C-alpha cells in the first residue's frame, strides 16, 4: 500500500512536470514575425530583408539607453542587433559625405550624418543626465532587449539603438521604433 501511494505521487508529479515543460515550450516560443526591412543604396539599389534574415546576420550585443525630451530615463539595456553600418554595406555602403535616413512604420524618420554614425552622437550619464564622454559607439538595429524579442511598445520587431562600452544614454529621438526602411542618401 505504501509503495502504491508513492507510485501515484511520482506519476502525478511527472505529469505536472510534463505539463509545465510543454507550457514553457509553447508559450515561451516567440511568435513568427512577418516584417520586411527595405534597404536602399545611394545608387538606388534596393534589397528586402525579412526579420529572420536580419537575425541571421552577424550581430553585436552591447548596452545603451535613452532619455525623453523632459528627461525620463529608459535603460541602459542589454541589446542585440546588427550594426547600421553593416546593413548599409549590403547596398553599397555609406561614405563620409552621405546621410543615412531611417524610417518607421508609424511615419517617423530620422537622418544621421556619417560623423554621427562614426561615434559622434552625444552621450549622457544615466544618473545625472549630464554629458559624459564615450569610447567606441555603435548605432545598432536591434531585435532583442534584455535577452528577449522587443515588446510592441519598445518598437517590435526592429528598433534603432545607440550603444557603447560605457552603457551611457543618448537622446531618445535617435531610438527609432518599428524601423522598416534604411536609405543611404548622397549629400551632393
Amino acid at each position: 500500500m505504501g509503495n502504491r501511494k508513492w507510485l501515484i505521487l511520482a506519476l502525478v508529479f511527472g505529469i505536472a512536470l510534463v505539463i509545465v515543460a510543454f507550457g514553457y515550450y509553447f508559450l515561451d516560443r516567440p511568435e513568427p514575425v512577418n516584417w520586411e526591412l527595405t534597404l536602399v543604396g545611394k545608387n538606388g539599389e534596393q534589397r528586402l530583408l525579412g526579420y529572420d534574415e536580419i537575425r541571421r546576420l552577424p550581430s553585436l550585443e552591447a548596452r545603451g539607453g535613452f532619455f525623453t525630451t523632459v528627461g525620463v530615463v529608459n535603460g541602459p539595456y542589454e541589446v542585440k542587433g546588427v550594426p547600421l553600418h553593416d546593413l548599409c554595406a549590403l547596398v553599397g555602403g555609406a561614405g563620409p559625405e552621405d546621410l543615412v535616413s531611417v524610417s518607421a512604420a508609424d511615419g517617423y524618420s530620422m537622418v544621421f550624418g556619417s560623423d554621427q554614425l562614426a561615434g559622434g552622437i552625444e552621450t549622457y550619464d544615466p544618473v545625472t543626465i549630464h554629458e559624459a564622454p564615450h569610447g567606441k559607439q555603435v548605432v545598432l538595429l536591434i531585435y532583442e532587449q534584455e535577452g528577449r524579442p522587443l515588446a510592441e511598445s519598445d518598437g517590435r520587431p526592429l528598433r534603432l539603438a545607440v550603444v557603447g562600452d560605457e552603457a551611457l544614454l543618448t537622446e531618445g529621438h535617435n531610438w527609432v521604433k518599428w524601423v522598416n526602411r534604411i536609405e543611404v542618401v548622397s549629400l551632393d
Partner: protein
Amino acid sequence: MIRRAGIVVISIIAVTVLAAGLTACAGAPEKINVRVLCAGSLMVPLNNLEAAFEARHPDIDVLTEGHGSIQVIRYVTELHEEVDVVAVADHSLIPMMMYNTRMPDTDKSYADWYIKFAANSLGIAYTAASRHTGEIDASNWYRVLARPDIKVGIADARLDSCGYRALMVLYLAGPYYRDSSIFRSVLGDFDPPLEISENDAQAAIAVPEILRPAGKKIVVRGSSIRLLALLESGDIDYSFEYRSVAEQHNLEFLALPAEINLGANEMADCYGQVICRMDFQRFASVQPEFAGEPIIYGATIPANAPHPALAEEYIDFLLGDKGREIFAAAHHPLVPPQADRPENLPPELKTLVENGG
C-alpha cells in the same frame, strides 16, 4: 474545557487574520487616471497644477507626461493611445494634425476645437559665469554672441520648436537692428549650409536634413532643455530659451525686443516676415513648414478621451483662478482663453471661454 477554549481563540485569530488579509487585498478604492500630455515647456506649471487638482479631487490621479509638442499629438493620432488632455506649445499643430485625421473605424476626427491659453517669448539665457555678461544688453547681444570666444547653444530646429523659433529670432534681428549680417555672424557656417531665400514679402529659412555647425562655436542639442545643463556646467555661455523655462531654472535672462521675440500678439505682422522650412519630412502627418507668429499654446480634449467630463473639469481648473496663480508662480504667462471654433466647445468650457477665463 481548556482545549475547547484554545480552539475558539485560534479560530478567532484565524478569522481576524483572514479578514485583515482580505481587506488589505481589496485595498483603497482605485483612483481614476486622467492622462494629460503636454509640451516639455509646460511641465513645471502642469506638475504643480496636477498636485492642486488632485488635492481637490482625491479620487483622481492626474498623469502628466511631457514630450515635444508634435510627439504629444502623435501619441493620440498615430500611436492611438487614449489621452484625456493635450496641451502643446504651438496651437497650429492641433488643427494640422488632429482635425483632418479620422479615428480608426469612424468618420470622426480626433478634435474639432482647441483653446489658446498661454504665451511665451524667446530670449537669451545665461549664468553669472558666462563671459561678457557685464556688457550684454538688448542693443548689443548679437555682437557679443558673435565673438569668437563665445559659445552659443541652440536647440535642433529639426526636433524642437525652440530651435526653429531661435532661427526666426536671428533672422528678424537683421531688419530690426538694420544689420543683415546678424544671422550669419552669430550662427557661423553650417555644413550643409542653412540657406535663406527672400522675396518682397517673406524670407524662408531652409533647414537641411543634417544640422551640423562647421566650427565649435555653436552647440546644437536635440532639445532646449538639454542646453540648460551645458549653461550650468559652463560648456556654453549663452543659449536661446523660452523665457518661462529660463526663469523656472533660475537662469539669467536677457529679454529681446518685442519686434523679434515672438512673444507679442501685436507684432504678428512683423513675425510673419519669416518662415522656417524643413528640407525633409520627419513626420508623415506634419507639414514641414513653420510660420513666424506669436508663440501661443493650445489645448484640446481628444474625441476618444476616456474621461471627457474630467478632462473638461481639468481645463476649467487650468483656466480658472488656481491655474492662473500656478502659472504666474511658474513665470509662464497665460492669455485670455480663446477658441478657434467656439461652437464646437463642450458647454462648460464654452461659458468659460466666453467669459475670458
